[in-house]
């Protein structure tokens, strides 16, 4: 093309951009608006996280502060933490006050184990079976499992009072039998966690593959289902542990003794120890969560990502 020749008409319908102007310069507003929006979102995020952290940390810090400082004299002390470590000896010296706390602690420890085991034994095979064989029952199971959410603990106690009279006469009045009612209480949370886990794997194909290779149902549950829903099981266990360690109403109304009723009794004579014990229970639950998460994460990383 010679310089004098007229320029060929452009096929592009894009309007010509003045020389020297870039796209960002020609559209400064949207970019600035986006940056402003991002800043706003980041600020909102920080505020929300700050509020949530304050919501959790202020009571915990207050508890810690109360546990290491005499309320009247204002002196700093590690006395209540020392008492907590030597709770067994204290219980022997003063069974009326500290004995209840020690018993409650032991009962809650046993209740945690029993509740978790019963919950897993009840839910995993049932949910697996329903997913594989009677899928039409899954809605019914979900309804039954979620039902305890809608029933207040006090109503549950009224209903289960007569049942526990029978439990007391057949088994004993030992507080560990609270595990039955605790299993009912943890059902909604454990069901949700396990349901998500089972939904994430191709259960029918995996179980059929295992069956064709010669595995029976128990082996399928133990070797195939459980390892593949490990995270869900860990979540269900943690929720159950947290719920059992924090349960007060039912134990109190049924005149049984657990950690929370023990703390309540001790709080009437030794408020500092009661708060220390509550804080320790919370820390224990937190540590447990971390350990379970780490264990679950460890296995996952071993399997490769």
């Amino acid at each position, binding site marked *: 093309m010679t310089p004098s020749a007229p320029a060929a008409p452009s096929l592009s319908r894009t309007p010509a951009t003045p020389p020297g102007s870039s796209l960002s310069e020609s559209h400064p507003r949207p970019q600035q608006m986006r940056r402003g929006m991002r800043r706003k979102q980041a600020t909102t995020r920080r505020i929300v996280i700050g509020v949530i952290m304050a919501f959790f940390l202020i009571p915990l810090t207050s508890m810690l502060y109360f546990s290491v400082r005499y309320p009247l004299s204002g002196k700093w002390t590690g006395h209540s933490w020392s008492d907590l470590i030597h709770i067994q000896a204290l219980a022997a010296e003063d069974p009326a006050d500290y004995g209840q706390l020690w018993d409650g602690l032991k009962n809650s420890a046993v209740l945690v184990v029993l509740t978790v085991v019963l919950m897993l034994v009840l839910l995993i095979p049932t949910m697996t079976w329903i997913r594989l064989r009677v899928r039409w029952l899954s809605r019914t199971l979900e309804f039954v499992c979620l039902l305890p959410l809608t029933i207040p603990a006090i109503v549950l106690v009224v209903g289960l009072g007569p049942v526990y009279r029978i439990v007391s006469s057949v088994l004993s009045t030992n507080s560990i039998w609270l595990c039955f009612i605790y299993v009912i209480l943890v059902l909604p949370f454990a069901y949700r966690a396990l349901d998500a886990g089972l939904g994430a*794997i*191709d259960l029918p*194909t*995996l179980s*059929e*593959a*295992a*069956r*064709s*290779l*010669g*595995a*029976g149902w128990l*082996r399928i549950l133990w*070797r*195939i289902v459980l*390892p*593949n829903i*490990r995270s869900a099981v860990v979540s269900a266990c943690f929720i159950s542990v947290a719920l059992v360690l924090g349960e007060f109403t039912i134990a109190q109304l049924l005149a049984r003794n657990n950690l929370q009723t023990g703390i309540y009794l001790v709080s009437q004579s030794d408020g500092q120890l009661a708060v220390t014990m509550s804080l320790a229970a919370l820390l224990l639950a937190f540590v447990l969560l971390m350990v379970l998460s780490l264990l679950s994460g460890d296995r996952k990383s071993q*399997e*490769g*990502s």
Partner: protein
Amino acid sequence: MTSVPTVAHHDVTSATTGSGALVELTGVSRSFGTVKALDGFDLRINPGELIVLLGPSGCGKTTALRILAGLEDADAGRITVDGRDISSVPTAKRDMGMVFQAYSLFPHMTAQQNVEFGLGLRGKNASERKKIAGEYLELVGLSAQADRFARQMSGGQQQRVALARALAISPNVLLLDEPLSALDAKVRVQLRDEIRRIQLELGISALFVTHDQEEALAVADRVGVMWQGKIQQIATPQELYSAPVNEFVAEFVGLSNPLVGTASGDAATVLGQQILLLPGSPRSGAVTVFVRPEAVRLVPIEGADVAHATRATIIATSFLGSMARAHARLADGTVIVAQIASADVAALRVGAPVGVALDPTPALAIAPGTAP
């Protein structure tokens, strides 16, 4: 693409039964509500034979395989393996290796552990398990991937491991439930050939279910074409293609041109040309003849052959790589498909007149309106 090493026979024979089992399903029926999935289904798999059940979705082929595996219960009928009735034997005790359509490797186990799983259930000790699993992984060309988890392998590799796992237990029968349908075309063909190679190498009886006719014809000793819960025809791929017994088989396996003609004795007159009829075709009267596209020739309208051809107009062409297809419309509106050399497709112009001639290859005919 994974290269498959040549595996010496002695590598795997130590772990295999060496010969296939005779499997018979007799009068097997299964209904789901009002739907009859299988209706008096009969099948015999000879020792070392690979049978493919081919049919459209819902024809009952997967149900038949699942009943043989014990994953479904039959309403009626009898299943025997080497003469032993296994109808009431649970899945876990049937000794049938199965490869599923969905990826079925246990996600928390490595390839090696997956293959060892069934061996452990058969009481093999750790060193035996390791040795046998290694042999089968080598057989499927995945020794290097033995320590990988399912999520670290491609779909084709996962199905290979599933095949090794199914074979490692030395099953009576190998069951393959559309094992290639989740794979891409290239891997499909590769794995299909590998399955056949391994099946022949081990001499194991196998039942393969698919809806892909190319796959079926490529791997099978015999193909059973299923429809409405029954086998319509079971025959070698060649026989199935060249001598279909009914309209369904003729239309389902390969392409067919249903053309109206008049039967007289062993032949029929179609488009003014004589075509030999397959046994079972009507011997007189009006018939519909199923002519394969490769039996249809397109000839120039001015050529010498035009006297034996019917005038038609090209309406479409499709290039398929190794060959091509041309669609031509006859004067009465009938559309006929011809298979032509791919080099010839460029010469055909849509709208151009051509002559359609038929080879006298034997074809199936049915009386119009006859159900298969």
